[in-house]
């Protein structure tokens, strides 16, 4: 086989609350395109099954079969993707996916259900520096999801509601689990849901600017991970950056939540070519 031939690669990003799938067509000269993206929320279902079903749904959407895929790569908590060929560390896949979606960025902040991590990247999507949040879920995506549930709000309504806030309620760091009571307190004090959500978004954003500062990020910063879809959080991060007068600009992409999966697929395609070239040399 020629190494310049177009190949298909799949990336599976297993997070703690959702599994993201990407099918990528890669021409080998940096001309890759995304065929299918698919997101499957886990919701306490059997993870192996979720992965299998999501993968099959992605193949079906692209009209291809498993044997057409040259390389299937996992990232995140990918141990359960037993049909994968290789695994890539989350940091490198998010960097790769973010640079692919938003060329020219200087940093990435990946905000997932449990962790947030900031990475400084170069134009080849190499990670130059990084920093992660600590071992506490306060201010994580799961935290926000819990709060939304206590408020009886659908996750997709969180962002738009937050954007309507008039007087954001200032929230200090609170335990993701005990937040239930704090939220109840706020509700019974008559604070609107918008103001509660915005307050939480601002407190989370403060945490992320701290992470970004600690790695000397500057220029365009891409948000990836599940929370990239939260317009309220993106706005709050913009506001925090302006307030702290940082030389950064927030950038998002409609496909940002798939950055990890896309990155994994791209790295998979790359590795496939490297391996194929080696076999050719040996032959």
């Amino acid at each position: 086989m020629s190494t310049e031939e177009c190949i298909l690669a799949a990336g599976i990003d297993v997070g703690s609350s959702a599994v993201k799938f990407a099918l990528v067509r890669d021409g080998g000269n940096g001309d890759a395109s995304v065929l299918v993206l698919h997101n499957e929320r886990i919701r306490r279902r059997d993870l192996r099954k979720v992965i299998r079903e999501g993968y099959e749904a992605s193949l079906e959407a692209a009209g291809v079969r498993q044997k057409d895929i040259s390389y299937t790569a996992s990232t995140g908590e990918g141990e359960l993707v037993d049909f994968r060929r290789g695994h890539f560390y989350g940091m490198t896949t998010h960097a790769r996916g973010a640079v692919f979606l938003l060329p020219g960025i200087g940093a990435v902040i990946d905000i997932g259900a449990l962790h947030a991590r900031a990475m400084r990247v170069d134009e080849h999507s190499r990670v130059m520096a990084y920093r992660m949040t600590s071992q506490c879920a306060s201010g994580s995506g799961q935290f926000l999801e819990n709060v939304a549930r206590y408020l009886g709000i659908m996750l997709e309504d969180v962002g738009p509601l937050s954007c309507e806030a008039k007087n954001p309620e200032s929230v200090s760091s609170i335990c993701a689990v005990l937040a239930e009571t704090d939220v109840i307190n706020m509700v019974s004090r008559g604070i609107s849901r918008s103001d509660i959500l915005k307050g939480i978004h601002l407190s989370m954003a403060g945490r992320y600017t701290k992470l970004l500062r600690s790695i000397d990020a500057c220029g365009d910063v891409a948000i990836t991970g599940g929370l990239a879809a939260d317009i309220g959080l993106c706005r709050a991060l913009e506001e925090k950056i302006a307030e702290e007068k940082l030389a950064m600009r927030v950038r998002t992409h409609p496909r940002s939540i798939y950055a990890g999966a896309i990155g994994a697929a791209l790295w998979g395609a790359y590795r496939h070519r490297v391996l194929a070239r080696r076999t050719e040399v040996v032959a």
Partner: protein
Amino acid sequence: MSVVEVLLGVDLGSTTTKAIALDRSGRIIGRGITNTRSNYEVASQIVRDEALVQSRFELVRHAMAADPELAGIEKKFIGSLVRNFRQRQHLEQLEWLESELRRCADAPRYAPNREAVREALNHICQAMRARVPGHFSELAVRKSDFFRDLAAVDYMQAAEQFSDAKHASFDVLCGLFDAAILVVENAAGDRAFERHAGPALEQTLAAAPADIREREARLRAAVESVRSLELRVLGIIGTGYGRQRLPFPKEQIRSEILCHGFGAHAMFAGTRTVLDIGGQDTKAIQVDGAGIVTSFQMNDRCAAGCGRYLGYIAEEMNLGLHELGKLAQESTCSVKINSTCTVFAGAELRDRLSLGQKVPDILAGLHRAIMLRAMSLLARSGGISDEFTFTGGVARNPAAVSALQGLVQQNYGVRKLNISPESIYTGALGAALFAQRAAEGGNAA
């Protein structure tokens, strides 16, 4: 109309709100508990009503015991009466949940799939109704006493069965439940006894064996006499996590530390150290011989080490809190849990499960983890003196208790450990006793 005077203590916890009703002699006649997540005003109203409902059942028992023809059968009869009563309450709430679900499903966002969503809801609700009698049969081991928990488990199981990925996804159905249950669980059971006691009595009598039915007239009279009673609340004291927001004047509020110390002393007079693991806080309290607090330490900033930790784990596993401890006790080789944070422990649990580790072993590790946090709090409050009383919801969990026993033995040697089956009501009991004191003081003056 005859009057029975009662004194109430209300403990507004974070997970559950509890109430104790005492009669004038200080005897406990009613208990109430709710897990509503609504504001404190609603929670204390629900739990007050619940305690008064229970008081009426207790008064029926007194009336039966006082009647020579009925004495001896009261336990069996009231057990069955209460089950029928609860089932009627449950069905009423379920009906309401159904209408809320339908209302939520009318939101514009579901318009493209409205028929599919409605149909899935119909199937789910039917399945839920079918499971109700099972929850309230004589031999039933219920996973929880709360409507929300029972309904959530039934709903999720049915939703998994009746969801379809394209038109009525599991995700959408979960969202509908979250929105609907918020409305339903926040309704007080006002006048529940008046409404349900009659039909529950008929149901009980219809299914009763001949020897009980023979005494039908006297049984009706006993229930009727209590139904027409006035329960007059002479005094009420509130305490707990939400006490600042209690709908009572300031002089009717006591700190939860004081109430727990006092309540533990009332249950076990020899108590010197109290460990209370509540939903959102853990307290280590040292008391003197009169039940007065001498020092304490408290964690209320982090869920790790609090009851909510286990509650969160139970939710993660779709289990009732009642089942968690029992399962953990089946462990043969406890796992060491690395995460401190509750949410992270939940993720660690999922990882370990998917790697094939055994549920009981993981759960045993989680129970030990929560107790390790409690031990450090106890050490900071001044250690553990004899006798040691363990209270709060977690004291009902056998795996938590045995983990604690092991750690106490290891660190302090032999200590007498007191646990009351009613320990979840310790704070409410302390508060009710303060209410009794206040009422007596008022009479003397």
